[in-house]
């Protein structure tokens, strides 16, 4: 008796949850479907759901016309470069705060977090001016630096929360056995912290990949990543739905896949350990 009730409830839950889930996912699904249609089918009224002539033409057209590979490469360099650089700078800082805490550690962590809250428009002109003066405008290097600085607080925080879970006794044992500080970090800490470091990399690549304030305002033709590539579709190309969809799918696919692997880290990384 009790079991049949649960099965019934479970069925209702399942139907309801799937309906809501598909509704939320629908814009992405629709974009993916549209990217395989011809332009005429894409704006057909009534909309065609599945029974259209599936074609890959839009993908090759977008590729040829707008040099998609260049934007993709810029995104990879900017998101990857800023994250890797940030992690390299953050590991020693997070290590020292996690294993040699002082009275001020908490204040420093909170202060770092507060720099993340600085509204970008408030410092837009100074950064813009500095970029012009230093010749960094529209350069990948400049964006790597800016995005690294933006995400550095989150990177330090995430690494700090992961490092804190590593028992300090293991490090002490290594020290007793005569490991130097450098050896301790490279051979003892890093292997244990690899899952945490990997999660940190993953989430911050996603954040940097999708960053759309600095990437739009500090780039033009040379260093523009995929965010700017899509923004250029605003008009009039945006009215070619099939091509817009193909371009969109190519811009979000890599990160969508990475994102699905990072669900758990997302909560931890974006709430700074306040919700676990």
């Amino acid at each position, binding site marked *: 008796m009790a079991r049949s009730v649960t099965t019934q409830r479970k069925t209702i839950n*399942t139907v309801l949850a799937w309906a*809501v889930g598909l509704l939320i996912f629908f814009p992405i699904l629709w974009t993916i479907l549209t990217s395989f249609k011809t332009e005429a089918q894409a704006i057909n*009224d009534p909309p065609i759901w599945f029974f259209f002539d599936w074609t890959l033409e839009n993908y090759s057209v977008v590729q040829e016309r707008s040099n998609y590979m260049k934007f993709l490469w810029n995104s990879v360099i900017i998101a990857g470069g800023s994250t890797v650089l940030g992690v390299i700078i953050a590991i020693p800082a997070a290590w020292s705060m996690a294993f040699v805490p*002082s009275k001020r550690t908490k204040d420093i962590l909170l202060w770092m977090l507060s720099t993340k809250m*600085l*509204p970008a*428009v408030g410092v*837009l002109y100074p950064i813009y001016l500095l970029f012009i003066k230093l010749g960094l405008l529209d350069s990948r290097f400049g964006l790597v630096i800016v995005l690294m600085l933006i995400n550095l607080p989150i990177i330090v925080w995430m690494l700090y929360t992961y490092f804190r879970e590593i028992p300090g006794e293991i490090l002490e044992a290594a020290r007793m056995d005569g490991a130097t500080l450098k050896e301790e970090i490279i051979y003892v800490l890093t292997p244990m912290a690899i899952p945490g470091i990997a999660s940190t990399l993953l989430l911050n690549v996603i954040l940097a990949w999708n960053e759309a304030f600095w990437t*739009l305002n500090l780039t033009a033709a040379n260093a523009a990543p995929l965010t700017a590539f899509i923004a250029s579709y605003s008009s009039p190309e945006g009215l070619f739905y099939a091509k817009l969809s193909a371009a969109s799918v190519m811009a979000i696919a890599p990160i969508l896949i990475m994102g699905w692997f990072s669900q758990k880290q997302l909560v931890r990384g974006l709430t700074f350990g306040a*919700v676990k």
Partner: protein
Amino acid sequence: MATAQSRSAARLMMTPAVVLLLGWMLVPLIMTLYFSFKRYLPLRGGDLGWVGFENYVRFVTSSAFWPSVQTTLIIVGGVLVITICLGVLLAILLDQPMWGQGIVRILVIAPFFVMPTVSALVWKNMFMDPINGLFAHLWKFFGAEPIQWLSQASLPSLVMIVSWQWLPFATLILLTAIQSLDSEQLEAAEMDGAPALKRFWYIILPHLSRAITIVVLIQTIFLLAIFAEIFVTTGGAFGTKTLSYLIFQRVLESQNIGLGSAGGVYAIILANILAMFLMRIVGKNLD
């Protein structure tokens, strides 16, 4: 335990991160403050001298200021209400036993990973376009006149787009919080005959209050700064100019740096007030 040597090593290892962030914070901040007290028009004569607080006064007395405050409040408030209410409901739903829970979770979270320019453009063209958009087809199907979403209902449209982007975030955090709820407590309440609504009101909601506060604070900080969604859809037209978009226009479009910087200082102060509340909660969790 920690020797003096390891302490100084630790301080040394912290230095790069601290110095970089300090520079990133102070240099632009001081420059913004400096410009905010100047009449500075790069395209019309450059630096025209000190003007005291004139920019601060002019920023808040300009005709665009109060509408932009109103727009900001509507967008931030609207998105917060929608994402929190739907987020709580979704989190409770996703916490129930069901088949394919993992896949549903993935479907719900997906919008968060879509870059802002893509979601803005897909919504703008493929859904809200008054001629070929999916909504227009839907409206015509029911015999209604299609709506010019981004011009006639620009604010609700933007709230909808941004809510779609942030609902996954709220849901995911609230779901994580719900999963830490002691299920025995709920079962006991159920045995005692407490109806579902009362269980929700007296057990689940109080348990979620901290997570909700965190979602509100973090989202507010990000929502105050939304840029790409407005940039791509309306470009600030049709009453969608938020405070930060207004500052962006003053700085980069009309190149009135003094005025824009004064606006920037207001934005920084506002963000800091919000950040202080967030820090207090996060800080408590550190001990």
